[in-house]
């Protein structure tokens, strides 16, 4: 395995609305393997933050302002955000 695949990177995840209030922060910083997928990030968030996983409310992950599917890979340069179900209007 190449060295860069083993490196850990810090990823900032912006929080909004109900998720921000449940965790009590505007953002969280997670240490993840480089080239982690959105699916892995979701699993990690669910493990680390029972305040979110206990609600059973689904959330999506946005990468660089686009809602990303679970296969999308994340680097430390990406802008990542956790989006609860939206309710504008």
């Amino acid at each position: 395995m190449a060295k860069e695949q083993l490196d850990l990177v810090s990823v900032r995840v912006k929080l909004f609305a109900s998720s921000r209030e449940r965790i009590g922060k505007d953002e969280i910083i997670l240490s993840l393997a480089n080239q982690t997928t959105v699916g892995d990030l979701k699993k990690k968030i669910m493990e680390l933050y029972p305040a979110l996983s206990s609600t059973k409310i689904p959330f999506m992950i946005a990468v660089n302002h686009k809602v990303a599917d679970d296969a999308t890979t994340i680097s430390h340069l990406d802008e990542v955000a956790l989006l609860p179900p939206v309710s504008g209007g």
Partner: protein
Amino acid sequence: MITITRDPIDLCKILVDAKDRSAGGTTLFIGSVRDHNDKGTVSEIYYEAYKEMAEDMLAKIESEVRKRWNIKKFVAIHRIGDLKVGDISVAVAVSAEHRQEAFEACKYGIDEIKTRVPIWKKEVSESGVTWVEGISPKSE
């Protein structure tokens, strides 16, 4: 014109921005804070946005509208912060040569805003203060 703002929404300005000499029709949709939800009386709503992404999404919705309909101007504004009953939370205005395009494009605009743009509301009602968990936006 696309904006997320904390300021009150000025409908006259929106109509001026939507005006176009080659348009024969302009539609305006206004969303405002309702005094009730299905659990009782609502006194106010707090709106929060992921502003940078919300503005990107509004621009994307405008470009989709322009691909589907031959319109002249597209204006979409969403307000955030603390709003009272009756306050305008969102407005979409579209001008086009003919009314059918203006109506359809305006409806598409507000429908997509409600399901895709990262904005959230917290209602203050008789039964307490609750975040409205609406729709999970799909990946693009």
